[in-house]
């Protein structure tokens, strides 16, 4: 049991370090077992230093967006340990700024060469980078339907029509 966890840890940690560098260029991230001798006694920490920050940065200091990027690196690291033919992500870009949202969407696009990626999103950056678009709405009667003839332009329109009205 212990040797198995340590082997998985080494593998996922290597994946994590690589994924974090990709998502936060200039930053540095790795996984830490609190008690490497008896891993079941301690927890697992994500030690991340975002680009430009002090080496002394603890996970609790990180901002909302910085924490999400660390967690997403962990998710990609776990997915790489045992690849699947398809993945589903639900609004993982909620608290990311446009730069970080784009990095995540680009990585999903790259990975979609090997496996199918389905991503629920409200952000224009992510909608722009997807190959296919599905629109879901409810018609005011509480019944969900798929919007017919939906494409990237329609998806961007859904967010835009809003901004056009206001401008």
């Amino acid at each position: 049991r212990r040797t198995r966890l340590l082997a998985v840890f080494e593998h996922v940690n290597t994946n994590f370090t690589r994924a974090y560098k990709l998502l936060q260029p200039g930053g540095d991230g790795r996984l830490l077992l609190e008690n490497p001798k008896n891993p079941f006694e301690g927890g697992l920490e994500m030690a991340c230093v975002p680009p430009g920050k002090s080496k002394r940065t603890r996970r609790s200091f990180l901002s909302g967006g910085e924490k999400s990027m660390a967690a997403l690196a962990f998710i990609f690291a776990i997915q790489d340990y045992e690849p699947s033919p398809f993945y589903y992500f639900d609004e993982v870009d909620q608290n990311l700024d446009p730069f970080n949202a784009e990095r995540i969407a680009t990585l999903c696009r790259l990975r979609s060469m090997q496996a199918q990626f389905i991503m629920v999103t409200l952000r224009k950056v992510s909608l722009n980078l997807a190959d296919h678009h599905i629109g879901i709405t409810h018609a005011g009667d509480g019944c969900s339907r798929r919007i017919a003839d939906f494409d990237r332009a329609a998806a961007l329109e859904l967010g835009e029509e809003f901004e056009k009205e206001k401008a």
Partner: protein
Amino acid sequence: MHLLRIELENFKSFGGQITVPFDEGFTAITGPNGSGKSNSGDAIQFVLGTRSTKVMRADNVGDLIFNGGKSGKQARHMSVTLVFANTPEIDGRRRLRVDEDEAKFTRSVRLNRKNQPVSSYMIGDRSVTATEMRRTLAEAGLHGDGYNIVLQGDVTTLATMTPHRRRGVLEEVA
């Protein structure tokens, strides 16, 4: 192998029969708040998953049946079918051990006379047990656990959970 489409019947806010087709590559789902986007993810988790109904924001499987919406009647039967492309690969083998070009996995729930939810599972039009369905899916790398399916809020939970729980996540992967 990829997900061709989801066929929903009275699953959560999807009243009646609705089909959501998918392509290979990178697909984005969008729409207003409360429209049913996360419910379509719950539908995938419902068939593939081992996680409890709690992650689908329901107290029991009965809550997953269409409640009629603003004016309608509550449905008494619901089902979700995931249809995967399963044509033989270069080596002549099919990724899923189902002898069809389209492999269909159906999970359905109906209310019995005492209003208790009764679940049933089918591969194609053959009734199977939950375990057999999960085993056939798992052989092809289709798991509901792990982070292949990241539901709304999972990222924040992972970023803020205690180190002990995060070690537990790694144990599940092992």
